[in-house]
C-alpha cells in the first residue's frame, strides 16, 4: 500500500478496522440515510446518533479528536444555511437592528439551522470513520458487492493507483514554478504579471499535466495489453460473509431502524 500524505487510511488494530468492508460500507450509508430521515426537532435521537458515532470513533482507535478535527472541513458550508434562521416565519426569538431595517430570528428557523448543521456534522463523522478505517482496495470490493458497475469500479481503482503519482507530478510542477518565481520580501507586494497572466501560466501547467497523463495512460494500456488485458476488469471473487458478519450487519441495521422509528413516532 502506497503511503502518501493524501491517503486518509489510518492503520490500527481495532474491531472497526477488522470489520468486513462491505458491512462498513452498507452501515455507513444506512447511518447517513437515518440521519437524513430523522425529523428536525427530534433532539434526543440526534444525541443518540452522535453518541453512537462517537463510540464507534473511540472503538476504532482513531480517537474522536482526530475525527472531529477532520470534520471541521465542511464547516464553511454551514454559512449557506445561516439565513434560514431569519427567513423562516414563526415565533420570534430576538431581533437584530441593522440600520434602517431589522433581522428577526424565529424559533423554527433556528431549529432548522441547528438541525441541518447537526445532520451534516454527524454524517461527516461517519464518512470519515469509513475512509480512515478501511484501505481503499477493500472499499473497491465493497462497491463491487453492492452492485456498482465493474467498469466504473475498475476505473476508480486505476484512478486511485495513479492519483498519488499525478498529485506528486502536480506538486513538482508547482515547486518548479515557485523556484522560478521571485517573491518580494515586502509583505503584500505583488510580483509577476497580472491575475490573468498568473491564471494563464497555471493553465499551461494544467495542460502540461493533462498531456503527461494522456501519454502515461497510453503506456499503461500497452503494459496492460502485454500482460494479457482484454478489456475485462477481473478480480478475485468476493468471499461470502461470515455468520458473525451477517449478525453485525443485521444488528447495525436493526439499531438504526429502531432509532429512526423512535424519532419519527415521537417527533415526526
Amino acid at each position, binding site marked *: 500500500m502506497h503511503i502518501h500524505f493524501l491517503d486518509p487510511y489510518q492503520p490500527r488494530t481495532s474491531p472497526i478496522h477488522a470489520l468486513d468492508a462491505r458491512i462498513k460500507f452498507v452501515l455507513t450509508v444506512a447511518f447517513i440515510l437515518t440521519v437524513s430521515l430523522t425529523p428536525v426537532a427530534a433532539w434526543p435521537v440526534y444525541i443518540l446518533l452522535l453518541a453512537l458515532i462517537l463510540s464507534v470513533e473511540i472503538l476504532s482507535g482513531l480517537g474522536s479528536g482526530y475525527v472531529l478535527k477532520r470534520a471541521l472541513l465542511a464547516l464553511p458550508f454551514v454559512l449557506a444555511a445561516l439565513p434560514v434562521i431569519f427567513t423562516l416565519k414563526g415565533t420570534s426569538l430576538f431581533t437584530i437592528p441593522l440600520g434602517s431595517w431589522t433581522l428577526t430570528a424565529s424559533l423554527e428557523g433556528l431549529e432548522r439551522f441547528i438541525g441541518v448543521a447537526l445532520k451534516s456534522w454527524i454524517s461527516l463523522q461517519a464518512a470519515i470513520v469509513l475512509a480512515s478505517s478501511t484501505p481503499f482496495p477493500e472499499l473497491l470490493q465493497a462497491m463491487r458487492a453492492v452492485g456498482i458497475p465493474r467498469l466504473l469500479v475498475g476505473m476508480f481503482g*486505476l484512478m486511485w493507483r495513479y492519483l498519488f503519482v499525478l498529485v506528486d507530478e502536480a506538486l513538482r510542477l508547482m515547486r518548479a514554478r515557485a523556484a522560478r518565481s521571485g517573491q518580494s520580501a515586502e509583505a503584500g507586494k505583488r510580483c509577476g504579471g497580472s491575475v490573468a497572466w498568473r491564471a494563464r501560466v497555471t*493553465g499551461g501547467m494544467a495542460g502540461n*499535466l493533462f498531456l503527461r497523463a*494522456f501519454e502515461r495512460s497510453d503506456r499503461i494500456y500497452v503494459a496492460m495489453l502485454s500482460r494479457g488485458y482484454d478489456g475485462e476488469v477481473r478480480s478475485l471473487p468476493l468471499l461470502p460473509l461470515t455468520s458473525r458478519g451477517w449478525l453485525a450487519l443485521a444488528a447495525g441495521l436493526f439499531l438504526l431502524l429502531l432509532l429512526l422509528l423512535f424519532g419519527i413516532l415521537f417527533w415526526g
Partner: protein
Amino acid sequence: MHIPDGFLSTLMAVILWVVSAISVAYALRRVDKDLGERQVPLMGVLAAAIFAGQMLNFSVTGGTSGHLLGAALATILLGPWAAIIVLTSVVSIQALIFQDGGLLALGANLFNMAVIGVTVSYFVYTSLHKLARGKSWGVFAGGFAAAWLSIVVASLAAALELALSGTSPANIAVPAMGGIHMLIGLGEGLITVGALAFLYAARGDLLRSGGAAPKGGAAVWIFGLGIAALLAVLSPLASAHPDGLEWVAAQKGFLETARSPLYNLIPDYTFPGISNTALATILAGIIGMLLVFGVALGVAYMRRNKKA
C-alpha cells in the same frame, strides 16, 4: 460547490441519485462503444489527472487563490460521454475518501458537476467552435465561455437544490451562489484557456481535428441548451419568491454597504427603470434565454450555409 450531507432533503437527494445513476450508466455504455478496452486505463488516469490538476492554484489577491475544476477542459478534450465518466470518478472519490461532499448528497453533486457541468460545456463549446469555423479563436473563446458558464450554471443548480430542500432561502442562495461562482468561473475560464493554449501549441492535433473530441450528437447539445435555459429562467423566478421580496431589498441594501465590490458583479438581477423586482428578474431571465437561443440559431444558420 460540493454539497455535504444534511443539506438536502432525503427526497431531493434520492431523486438526484436516480437521475445521476441513469445518466452515468448511459454514458458508460457510450464510452464502452467508442473506446472499447482502452477506456479503463484512459479514464482512470485522466480522472487522476483532473484531481491532481485541481491542486494547481494561483494567488488572486489577499490570500485567496483560484484553481481548476476541469469539467470544461475534460469535455473539450474527451467529448461529453467520457467527460461524464471522468468527472463521476473524480467527484465520487472526493466524496468517498476526502469527504469533499456527502455520500447521500453525492447524487446531487454528480448531477451538478458531472451531468450539468459537462452538457453545458459541450453545448457552449461546440456552438462557438462551429461559429468560428475551425479558426483558432473558436477553441479559446469556446473554452473560456464553456468553463465560465458550466461553473455558473452548476452553482445555480446547487442553489436551487438547497432552496427546494428548505435549507437556504432561494432569494439569498441563488444570488449568493451565482455571484460567487461568476467570479470563480472567471478563474476557471482563464486557466482553461491557458491549458488549451498549451495543448494547442504542443499537441494541436488533439484540438484541431476534433481529435479525441466531441461526438456527443444533437441530444447532448440540446440537453445542455435546455439545462442552461431552464436554470436561467428558474433561478431569477425562485430568487424573486414573493415571500422574500422585502428580504431581497433589505439584503441588497445591506450587502452593498458591507461588501460592495463582491456584490457589484451582480446588480443585473434588477433592471434599471423597472421598479418591480420580480418582473425585472424574470426579464433578465428571458433576455438571458434569448441570448442563448441567439447562439443556437446562429449555429443552425452556419450549418445551413455550409451545406449550401
